[in-house]
């Protein structure tokens, strides 16, 4: 369980990348945790838990896609396969990205920080955000898109320009 706890945010990111949908990723993460628990006897201590848990997560993603084969809200299985392969080849250092993200969040304006907080922490839908902030839904979506893009640029700058800071 200790291994699993430490792996949660990595698995969450991994599943989110494969599915492109935060809500779906949260659901599949739950399924993955159940599967990991059931299969825990198959894992051998001393071997790579991250790799094993990602494999289990991948199969849960595949199961999710299989159940929604005709759903236009999910990625094609071929793309998920390609994304998985790229994930294997180009490892993401989640801890490093997370630290860079925290650094970059400091540069975000107060109003945009509040926007992010309402969206992610309070989980307010765009319609509710629009009312609360007295802005159009389109304006809220664009603002969120821009701040995420700015954060991505900042993170890439941090990761590229600095040696590990944390």
């Amino acid at each position: 369980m200790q291994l699993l706890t430490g792996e949660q945010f990595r698995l969450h990111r991994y599943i989110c990348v494969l599915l492109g949908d935060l809500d779906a990723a949260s659901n599949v993460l739950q399924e993955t945790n159940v599967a990991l628990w059931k299969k825990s006897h198959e894992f051998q201590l001393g071997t790579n838990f991250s790799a094993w848990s990602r494999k289990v997560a991948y199969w849960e993603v595949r199961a999710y896609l299989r159940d929604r084969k005709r759903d236009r809200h999910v990625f094609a299985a071929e793309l998920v396969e390609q994304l998985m392969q790229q994930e294997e080849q180009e490892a993401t250092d989640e801890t490093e990205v997370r630290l860079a993200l925290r650094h970059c969040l400091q540069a975000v304006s107060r109003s945009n920080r509040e926007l992010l907080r309402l969206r992610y922490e309070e989980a307010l839908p765009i319609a509710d955000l629009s009312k609360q902030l007295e802005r159009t839904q389109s304006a809220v979506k664009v603002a969120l898109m821009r701040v995420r893009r700015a954060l991505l640029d900042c993170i890439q700058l941090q990761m590229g320009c600095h040696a590990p800071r944390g």
Partner: protein
Amino acid sequence: MTDAEQRTIDELMSEITDGAAGDHARRLSGMLLDRPDLQRYYRRSATVMALLQLEFTQSALRPSSVESMGDPLTATSPISLRPQRAARPLTTRCRRGTTGIVAAAIVAGIASLAALQFASEDPSPEQVAIEALASAWSQLEETPRVGRGVAVRDPMSLELVSRVTRQPEVTNLVIPVRHAAKESSTTLCRGSVWIQRDSQQIERGHLLMLPPGCLVKAEIDAEALGMNSLAVVELDSRGAATGETLMFDNSDRKIRNALRQSEPVAGRIGSFAKRNTSGRTEYFLLIGSHALRNAEGNESWYQSDYRIQFDAEGVLVIGWDDSGYAGDERDASEFPPDRDYDDIRVVLRFSFPDAPAYQRSFTPSRHLPSPTLGGGADGELGIGRTLEIPPRCEAVISASTDALQQNSMRIVEVSSKRIIWKHDGYAPDKGQQSGKPNDLGVYLIRNRSDEVIRYEVQGFSRRTTGASHGSRWDASPWRVLFNDGRAQAIGFEDSLNDGDAIDWRDLLVYVRVFSD
């Protein structure tokens, strides 16, 4: 990948995440298929979205009062500060409506840290709570040596500590624990966390405890030529890292100062506040590190040793020394330790905001530690720097010396001319050359009145070499080296006639004023 493609990916991801139902996923899927370059960009964007959600839903450190302290977030604030947010009220509420029961609730919360202290006495809840308010964080035993604690080998925790200290792989953490007298279980307790590395080095950090309902406000200052950093790592009740960290360092100030002059980097480098609304004790590991450059100019990081400089009535001051870890002879020979323990320092102030008024009514001391001289209007005025402590404010004053001569620090209350504190430092033959620290102590003044109270900070020196060697103390001229309105550094010079030796740092007094 063109800009237009990038923009389209952003828009489709935005629609999938924030928008209404549609075929955006299918469109994005078709766009990304067989395009590794677009997939790479998409993966990075999705990573940001996933981690944003995690940051805002799972982070435990909430520097809620950073903004309320009046200090804008700057590049020198902790690199892992989340956006500021309002502190939430305590989730544990008194339903029965009596002050005594509220006290019991607090007692229950702090039971894990205070159990041993109070277990055999069965005092009233009120007594326990009042005591706990004042001293729960300060009455617990330090863990004096390796071997008394629980070993943590969780890979993620070790990796995290290795990262925040910027040093080779940590192999083991030994967390201090205490055994409850009436229980068979052990709980983590405040004290030294021993950090073992595969290089066989053993260093230490400090474990803080935050009882339920407790609010801690921390200010971090630096006074150092070189790079110093402080990491705050949250641990769970088993001693494993939760993944939440705060990092503070003086890098930006260092760069700025280096462009101007090679003076130590003084001043505030960050702050954080944390209120424990979880209903269980929270734990935070504090680790100081510093960078040293070798002859080739290559920078290496080392862990700094620390000292508890002040610990009373809800105020805890911890200072780190960047001279090299005590006991590391290689570093000590290359970089002689000055052991000033002010290179990076954190002032932590604890309170229980939701505690009933009567529990907060104990009278805090005005001067801590107790005045060194027994009263008497024997102080001289007009020779030092006047400090004005505003109403309802408190000041934390630290002093250190780094000089060939013996330097003394005095703090005189202006209205009474009473010397409140006096520290005569150490004669060179008894001082730093024999390993005595340059740290002259940390002092706390609380002004609970509605009027400004004035003090004078004075420096004296005594020649211990040459023809004028004697016992006479001469007042040293002073200069304000740094002042940002809330903190100031006052430097004293003991050899004004010796041009080569003038650095205004023979005695250094650092004052920080807190307004609440």
